[in-house]
């Protein structure tokens, strides 16, 4: 067992993410949320292990499955849910939605709906801190499907060449959209690519939040000491389909059952000896989500008056 400094905080945040994602799923099923939803149930260990290793100034960029990352960094669940439900009071005024959530004041800069589209953004953020000297790390979380894109390769190369203060966090959940990784590449561990460019790379059990945290700390220490980027490949599993409504028929039920046994929350509770505290932590998380839901559903829908605002800094006609 790896000890962590704030086990109860991490546990409660994992419960918050789980409760939040389950609620989003329910609301979607009840047709109270629009759009193409990608949930991270089962991957909470990576998001929380990552967030607990960062400082507030560090800038995290998420992908299309990023609710967990925003919450892990401290995004307000109510404002986040409002955004996902297209409300005027959501983080992005309802203009972004599930795939484009942002909570920059928490260090969760933005998400993107384009596979691997966030990797160059994080690269630029890390580059900016080398110029401005603000000491912020660039951090990017992406899935294994991003590993076959050109941007992935280009970004590893530039990060290594320039020695950027950057963490690549690959959440390898075994599936790129609907295909197992083996159908998309012969490369089993994407960390192999990082090694090619001389980037220190480590593969960890992503369902072990403490192990993720330890790997993140190593990477953070390296980057802050001027040692350049680190690549962390966290092996995990998506307990839901690629998107809500995905029947997931491409997966074996036995595989799903196996992974349910490795639930990152249960694992963390057992490893950290939090059996006594867990039910209350879960209850607190669910209460927060209940309140967030009430607030979100009561919030006004995005206002059409805001349709033409923020296209550019200069107001458009």
């Amino acid at each position, binding site marked *: 067992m790896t000890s962590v400094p704030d086990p109860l905080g991490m546990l409660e945040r994992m419960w918050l993410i789980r409760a939040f994602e389950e609620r989003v799923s329910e609301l*979607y099923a009840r047709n109270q949320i*629009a*759009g*193409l*939803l990608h949930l991270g149930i089962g991957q909470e260990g990576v998001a929380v292990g990552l967030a607990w290793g960062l400082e507030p100034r560090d800038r995290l960029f998420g992908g299309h499955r990023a609710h967990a990352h925003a919450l892990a960094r401290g995004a307000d669940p109510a404002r986040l849910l409002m*955004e996902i439900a*297209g*409300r*005027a009071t959501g983080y*992005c*005024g*309802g*203009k*972004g*939605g*599930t*795939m*484009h959530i942002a909570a920059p004041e928490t260090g969760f800069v933005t998400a*993107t*709906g*384009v*596979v*691997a*589209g966030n990797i160059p953004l994080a690269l630029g953020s890390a580059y900016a801190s080398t110029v401005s000297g603000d000491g912020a790390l660039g951090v990017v979380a992406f899935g294994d*499907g*991003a590993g*076959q*894109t*050109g941007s992935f390769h280009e970004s590893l190369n530039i990060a290594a060449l320039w020695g950027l203060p950057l963490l690549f966090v690959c959440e390898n959940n075994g599936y*790129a*959209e609907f*295909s197992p990784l083996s*159908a*998309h*590449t012969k490369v089993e561990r994407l960390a192999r690519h990082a090694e090619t460019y001389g980037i220190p790379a480590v593969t960890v059990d992503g369902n072990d939040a403490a192990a993720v945290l330890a790997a993140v700390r190593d990477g953070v220490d390296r980057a802050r000491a001027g040692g350049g980027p680190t690549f962390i490949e966290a092996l995990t599993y998506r307990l839901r389909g690629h*998107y*809500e*409504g*995905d*029947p997931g028929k491409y997966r074996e039920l036995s595989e799903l059952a196996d992974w349910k046994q490795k639930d990152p929350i249960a694992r963390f509770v057992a490893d950290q000896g939090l059996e006594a505290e867990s039910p209350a932590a879960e209850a607190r998380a669910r209460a927060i989500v209940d309140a967030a839901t009430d607030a979100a559903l009561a919030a006004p*829908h*995005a*206002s*059409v008056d*805001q*349709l*033409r605002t923020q*296209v550019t800094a200069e107001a*458009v006609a």
Partner: protein
Amino acid sequence: MSSPETSAALGADPSDASDPSVMSDPPARAGWSRLSYAEGMALGLREALASDPTVRLMGQYFFGLTPWRRLTVDIRERFPDRVWDPPIAEIGYVGTGIGAAISGLRPIVDVATASFIFQPFSQVVNEAANIHYMTGGQTRVPMVIHVNHGIRGGGAAQHSHSPQAMLWNTPGIKIMTPSSARDVRGLLRTAVEDDNPVFWADHAKLFDYVDDVPDAEERIPFGVAEIKRAGTDVTIVGTSLMVRRALEAAEILAADGISAEVVDPRTLVPFDTETILESVGRTGRLVIVDECHQSCGVGAEIAARVAEHAFDALRAPIRRIATADVPIPFGRPMEELVEPSAAKVVTAVRSLLG
């Protein structure tokens, strides 16, 4: 009539989808069948695969994530060795499609959501579109590039693009934007047999519309517009899903005694300017409804042409109904406001008729 668009909403399990044989009414006439747009697509794909052993499908999201995607499963079962699922590497697999086309195959490459065309944009506009020209006519690139374009509900700014106007500014690539089961099937057959790259833009909200389709094989030529509804007071030109919105508008206008003619160009490249000019010659008024952004959109080119060549026939300025010039917002009320609608077409027509 309730719009079938709603049932194309994302996310339902395919097993929940209504059986198309139940959805389809009995054949309207002998030798014709009533098919949904999605079934028309699937028919065209199956016919193309059956008629030419060099046809290949690259990609698996022809029907997006709608329940109709089980039709891909059906195609895969019939042609198990002719469908390839590439990795999420659009530059790589679109380029693979180009090379395969150069070397003897006729690939139909699916880029799925049209917003993702910007990933392999260089392959599409710098390579596929230019190769025949740059080589002085030596090499041909007979391929079809498929996307599902447009505002589909909650897709927000990165899953709602209609990039066809940008490609209309790009010499060397043909563009088809069908609006009915019959058109998509017939145009697809022509596209697959064409020796040029063809950009094929579908709209997920078209998939459920049902129309008559001839049982016999049919190839619809490119560059021939179809008058989808005859009228005398105003011409409405629509493309893709917007043909449906135009027809809805014409229906509403008819109740007011306004006779609208609805013209569907069906292909942007080549483009049938003549049919539109003839129609405008009769009606004297033109409204264009297209789902690209307005600035430099498809409507701009049509308006500029008609304004130049039918200047004397026009009795009123040409009006464009397009997607507002903002990134597509996520929230529903805003999304409804930015997209072109039948109501907006009706308002525009009324403003022209005073």
